[in-house]
């Protein structure tokens, strides 16, 4: 038998509500932490579970009315575990047959509860390894080698907690947390893992220009490397703002310009809130499209007051609304990266890179506000969406492996701007979040206000990596669509404000709290990155090994 620390005994509970265990007198309530991983040894099964609440109990009201005097350690020691006791609420997550049998199904979701008085143990390293490395959740057939990635370590142990990256990229995912809790660092880690393992190709809409090149760490003040630096030419860095790139001394692989001809009414509709447009104004843009096709915006921006009035009269548009539309869209024409007419070549170049398996990071430079971000992300993604649809349809006809589109993951920040209940119904991102899984495209949404995201979209999110959240609504939102999620709520608010996260969903066998892996030199090396002189030394070593001195 292993010497796991016994912490308590199951006394009651249900599958729906979770279990209650009475703590051993020797187990201090204060060392029980919400989120701790515990194992219940039932008669026939082991239950891998999480502590979801900690409480104090007393067998007798009298004790509470007349507690022993403060300094009476003896009375306290006697009463602890007898008249007064700690209890923990436990949510069982996975079960495993205690006696391996022929029809052993490995770890699987819980369907029952352990019997009365089953002992509860603190999980040890073997338990963690068993659950987070040998992923054996039934019902998943897999070919070839699985792609596991260490996202971090448990709070109180030195063993890796791994995610299954292939499962991760199969669905849309979310990284949530208050400002400054490490969302961008988590995204860097996940993106690195995906690039390294080739689980998917990435397109990152990099609002704050932080993923491609160096950025400063708030905590240490050191600079950390960007993905373009870590992975070299496998990652291409595009920018909307070549000047900002020049100022930072980075050499972009391409510059993105957007033509007025590429902007559609849908893009403008998405900006309704940002530009404070009325819906009548948005409606009237369709009248422009009817007449001018893809030159509608260019035409509108060039109209003077008189032509505008004439157009309104001829087309039956509301003149005030037309004028307002023009006034508000003028801002688009003035953006540095917008030209009158642009062919699709840059966007197509990006698409071709993605098709060939190279990752693309698009930096926004000075255009780091939601208006520009939404506009550009939507235009580019629409093009990719069309393409992936076609590719998937072809693949469905031919069924040839070489026609299978490459799994693509699109990373967006401030996701609630694209995926709020109104926008989610109109934009391409809403469509992707809801259905594009079938078309090999998924999203990685990064947001500090998950409650702003449409609930239907939230419930489609496969894996959630969540740092600290305080707001009740945001916490609620994270657990949308998670069976029994309500029980886990206390976990989120109990996380440390930095470098701790709760991982739950499709890519992990059960929810788990981690100390997030540190993004530093050791990580770069694990991703295969070598500094120049080191590369030279290794090459030299290889040469001498081959050819002698």
């Amino acid at each position, binding site marked *: 038998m292993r010497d796991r620390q016994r912490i308590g005994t199951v006394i009651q509970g249900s599958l729906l509500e979770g279990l209650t265990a009475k703590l051993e007198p020797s187990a201090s309530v204060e060392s029980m932490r919400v989120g701790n991983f515990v194992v219940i040894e039932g008669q026939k099964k082991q239950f891998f579970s999480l502590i979801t609440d900690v409480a104090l109990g007393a067998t*007798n009201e009298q004790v509470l009315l007349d507690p022993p005097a403060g300094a009476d350690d*003896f009375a306290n020691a*006697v009463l602890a575990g*007898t*008249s007064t006791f700690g209890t923990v609420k436990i949510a069982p997550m996975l079960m495993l047959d205690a006696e391996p049998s022929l029809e052993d199904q490995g770890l699987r979701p819980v369907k029952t509860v352990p019997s009365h008085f089953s002992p509860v143990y603190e999980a040890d390293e073997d338990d963690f390894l068993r659950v987070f490395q040998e992923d054996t959740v039934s019902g998943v057939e897999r070919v070839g080698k699985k792609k596991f990635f260490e996202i971090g370590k448990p709070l109180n142990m030195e063993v890796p907690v791994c995610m299954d990256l292939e499962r991760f990229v199969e669905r849309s995912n979310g990284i949530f947390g208050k400002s400054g809790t490490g969302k961008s660092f988590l995204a860097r880690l996940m993106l690195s893992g995906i690039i390294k393992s080739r689980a998917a190709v990435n397109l990152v809409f990099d609002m704050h220009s932080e993923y491609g090149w160096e950025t400063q760490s708030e905590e240490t003040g050191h600079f950390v490397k960007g993905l373009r630096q870590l992975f070299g030419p496998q990652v291409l860095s595009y920018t909307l703002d070549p000047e900002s790139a020049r100022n930072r001394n980075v050499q972009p692989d391409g510059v993105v310009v957007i033509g007025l001809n590429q902007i559609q009414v849908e893009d403008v509709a998405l900006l309704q809130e940002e530009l404070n447009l009325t819906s009548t104004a948005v409606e009237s843009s369709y009248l422009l499209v009817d007449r001018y096709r893809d030159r509608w915006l260019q035409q509108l921006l060039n109209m003077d007051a008189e032509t505008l009035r004439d157009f309104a009269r001829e087309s039956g548009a509301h003149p005030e609304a037309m004028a307002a539309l023009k006034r508000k869209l003028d801002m688009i024409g003035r953006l540095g990266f917008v030209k009158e007419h642009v062919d699709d070549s840059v966007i197509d170049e990006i698409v071709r890179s993605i098709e060939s398996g190279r990752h693309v990071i698009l930096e926004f430079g000075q255009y780091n506000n939601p208006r520009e971000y939404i506009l550009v992300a939507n235009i580019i993604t629409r093009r990719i969406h069309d393409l992936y649809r076609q590719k998937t349809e072809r693949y469905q006809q031919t069924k040839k492996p070489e026609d299978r589109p490459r799994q693509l993951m699109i990373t967006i920040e401030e996701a609630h701007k694209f995926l709020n209940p109104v926008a989610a119904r109109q934009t391409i991102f809403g469509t992707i979040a809801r259905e594009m899984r079938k078309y090999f495209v998924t999203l990685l949404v990064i947001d500090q206000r998950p409650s702003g995201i449409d609930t239907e979209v939230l419930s489609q999110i496969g894996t959630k990596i969540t740092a600290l959240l305080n707001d009740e609504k945001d916490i609620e939102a994270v657990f949308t669509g998670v069976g029994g999620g309500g029980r886990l709520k206390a976990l989120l608010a109990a996380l440390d404000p930095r470098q701790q996260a709760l991982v739950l969903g499709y890519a992990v066998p059960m929810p788990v709290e981690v100390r997030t892996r540190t993004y530093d030199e050791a990580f770069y090396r694990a991703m295969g990155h070598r500094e120049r002189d080191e590369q030279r030394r290794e090459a030299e070593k290889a040469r001498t090994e081959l050819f002698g001195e």
Partner: protein
Amino acid sequence: MTHDLSPLGRVLRSSTTEFVVGCQDLARVPTFGSFVKVQAHDGVWVYGAAYNVLIDDDPFVRQIIGNPHIPREVALDQKENRQTPIEVEVLVLGYARDGLVHQYLPPQPPATLSDVYPCTASEVTAFTGQLSYLRTILFTPQIPADELLAANVREAYLRRGGDREFLVEAGREAARLLKDEYDRLKAILSRIRPSLFRSSTPEPARRRGVT
């Protein structure tokens, strides 16, 4: 701790749940709460705790009790060499057979005139390795149960060499037994708390006093 293995008296009356020891010498009367043992039949040693001492009068005492000047020798004689025995009532707590302790009633009570011995420290330690006997003390009617339990636990604590963990465990057992009687529990805990033993050495009281 001295191991005094000569008998302290003999069984005067006995039943399954208790027996009475007749002692001759007041100095050798077991103290309140202390452990004694007596052999019942082959290999069965009945264990009990002394809970009451009765010093009866005799016709001679009646005669001289009113006398203003009782000679010292007479008073001394009353302590050490009595006509009527001192009666010590003992509550049966369990028994041991072949070195195994059982904390429930023995199959047979001890016969009258069997020798009764005080328990040695190692016997006390072995017997108090389990604590379910505390239940017998607490729930026997018509004895000063709470006082007896406290005295017995204090005695065991000392004979075990001052083992604080034992006091806590005994307290816990009492807490489990008295889960609906917090006031009783509190009174007991205040009578067995470790701080009682710190200031004064209870050794003389244990050897001499008849509570």
